């Protein structure tokens, strides 16, 4: 194992895949010489040249569409949309084009492209640079949605995403780029659609993903000292969804709380809660809870920003309510 930052793990995944497959190439804003705003692609242009590490103008709709076209002619583009908020400019290409080509064409062509983007609050970036918009993509048949929480997962999942035959929305979190964790020295590829039990427990299941996984693990440690055993299921990929792992954990503990940073209304939590009701009702000892972001745009001021997203204390409180 080597200790690596999340952004270094992402870079390693891209580097290895570009090395392995000359049809993998990158497009995005300031990703070449500048290395990207979060430095994920730093140095890659020197290794692979500006023909494969391509700076674009600020034209999200069209460079996303370009990825669709390049994928259709046999390439494997990996694009970076600097903030998930900016992906709203490219929704036609993501939702109407990338997600549907394989279906519409009767299977004549797939769209093997990865949209790397990042979301989340915590840096005082205000309402148009802090959103958690994964539910928009989760809702669309034909898209895969990946949200890794650790350098290990970021590395293995990005490699799988690049090798996937279908469009993948790969959502990073801005607070995770500088986090460190162990990554195997040897190459790994983590199949999409498999959750990871980040911590085993018997009293209650926290189903979560991305940055909230870290908060759930912190809450679990605090609760352990009070004699409560918490299982933390990190979904890692929202679509495809690893229902089996969620359901078997629910059956084991009988109590489930879904934790995400995105606003509660219309979020992933509601869908998972309904799925648990439909498929595991008899195994539950109580109602499924959601701990999620407030139904508001993210404010600028750090104190009120903090109040909008679940804290470790919120999670602890939630667990104490159900056990």
């Amino acid at each position, binding site marked *: 194992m080597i200790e690596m930052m999340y952004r270094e793990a992402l870079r390693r995944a891209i580097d290895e895949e570009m090395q392995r497959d*000359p*049809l993998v*190439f990158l*497009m995005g804003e300031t990703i070449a010489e500048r290395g990207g705003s979060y430095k994920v692609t730093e140095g890659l242009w020197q290794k692979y040249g500006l*023909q*494969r590490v*391509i700076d*674009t*103008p600020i*034209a999200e*709709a*069209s*460079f*996303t*569409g*370009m*990825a*669709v*076209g*390049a*994928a*259709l*002619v*046999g*390439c494997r*583009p990996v694009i970076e949309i600097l903030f998930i908020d900016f992906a709203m400019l490219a929704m*036609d*290409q993501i939702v*109407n*084009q990338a997600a549907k*080509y394989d*279906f*519409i*064409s*009767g*299977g*004549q*062509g797939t769209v093997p492209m990865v949209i790397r983007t990042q979301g989340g609050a915590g840096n005082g970036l205000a309402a148009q640079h802090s959103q958690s918009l994964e539910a928009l993509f989760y809702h669309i*048949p*034909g898209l895969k949605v990946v949200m890794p929480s650790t350098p290990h997962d970021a590395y293995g999942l990005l490699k799988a995403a690049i090798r996937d035959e279908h469009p993948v929305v790969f959502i990073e979190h801005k607070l995770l780029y500088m986090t460190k964790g162990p990554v195997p020295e040897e190459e790994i590829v983590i199949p999409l659609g498999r959750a990871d039990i980040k911590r085993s427990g018997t009293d209650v299941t926290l189903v979560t993903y991305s940055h909230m996984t870290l908060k759930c693990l912190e809450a679990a440690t605090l609760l352990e000292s009070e004699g409560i055993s918490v299982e933390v299921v990190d979904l890692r990929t929202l679509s*495809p969804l690893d229902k089996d792992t969620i359901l078997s954990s629910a059956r084991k503990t009988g109590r489930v709380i879904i934790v995400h940073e995105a606003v509660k209304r219309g979020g992933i939590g509601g869908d998972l809660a309904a799925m648990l009701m439909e498929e595991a009702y008899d195994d539950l000892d109580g109602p499924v809870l959601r701990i999620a972001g407030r139904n508001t745009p993210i404010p600028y001021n750090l104190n009120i920003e903090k109040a909008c997203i679940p804290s470790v204390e919120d999670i602890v409180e939630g667990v104490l309510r159900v056990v």
Partner: protein
Amino acid sequence: MPTPPAAGGSPRPTEPILLGMYRNIYATRQFELKCIELYRQGLIRGYLHPYIGQEAVAAGACAALNAADYIVSTHRGHGHCISKGADLKLMMAEIMGKATGYCHGHGGSMHISDKRVNNLGANGIVGAGIPIATGAGMGIRVRGTDQVVVVFFSDGASNNGVFAESLNLAGIYGLPVIYLLENNHYAVSTPIECATGCCDLAGRGPAYGIPGICVDGNDALAVYRETAAAVARARQGQGPTLIEAKTYRHGGHHVNDPGLYMDPAVLAEWKARDPLLLTRRAIGDDARSAEIEAQVDADLESAIAFATNSPEPSVDAFLASIEDR
């Protein structure tokens, strides 16, 4: 292979190319007329946007391409599809929603693609094909082949943001893409004069450092000539071209739109310059054109018979195929 451009001049089509263009123009016209008939009988549903009046654009442009070159089409795409070499049977089956169609009945008229001849497909979203084509051009650059892309779109699409973005992008990277703007003068029912402050649409090319050429879109030979020249430039690494082909719909936006907003006098002028008649005249030999027409008529009859006799997609098989999508 298209005729290479003559030194210092424009390429002229060889006879097989001229006859091929006529075949595609005639086939498109008859195909559309049959589709309208089948639509009236309730055998075709959804939206149907006839290409009648614009056939010379697709036929002329595709005549300048090789099978390996790509096209990207539009909601009014039957002509592009036919001119790139589609099988009329599979097209008609798709439009009639049959399991044997190009897309197994998933797509219909607005979504036909044809991988066999590198037709990347029609699109139900106006303008959406423009960045896709630009990306196909980028993909060609990454793969290092000498293919080119022709993307068809309308004057309506030229006022969408992705048109400006894509021309800019193609200009930066010098991509092998020919932007074929079919100016049929209407976005649904909005005349071009009401949709832009500057109706010189070819002039938008130079704004992005790209050659912008205006051509008579009813003249298949002229469209062929300009496309062949643009293709030659693209293959030589000289980048993209914007071609504005001025043309006119012979009817409304779709089969249920009578097009009452169109000035009958203007329409009559365009109909007098019907691309079908102009191309037939260019051949000048009635026996040759009649021979082509007879063959197309027979092919079209078999296509309709094939589509009519083809099965509907199986609901069970469909439901099984979408699990976990």
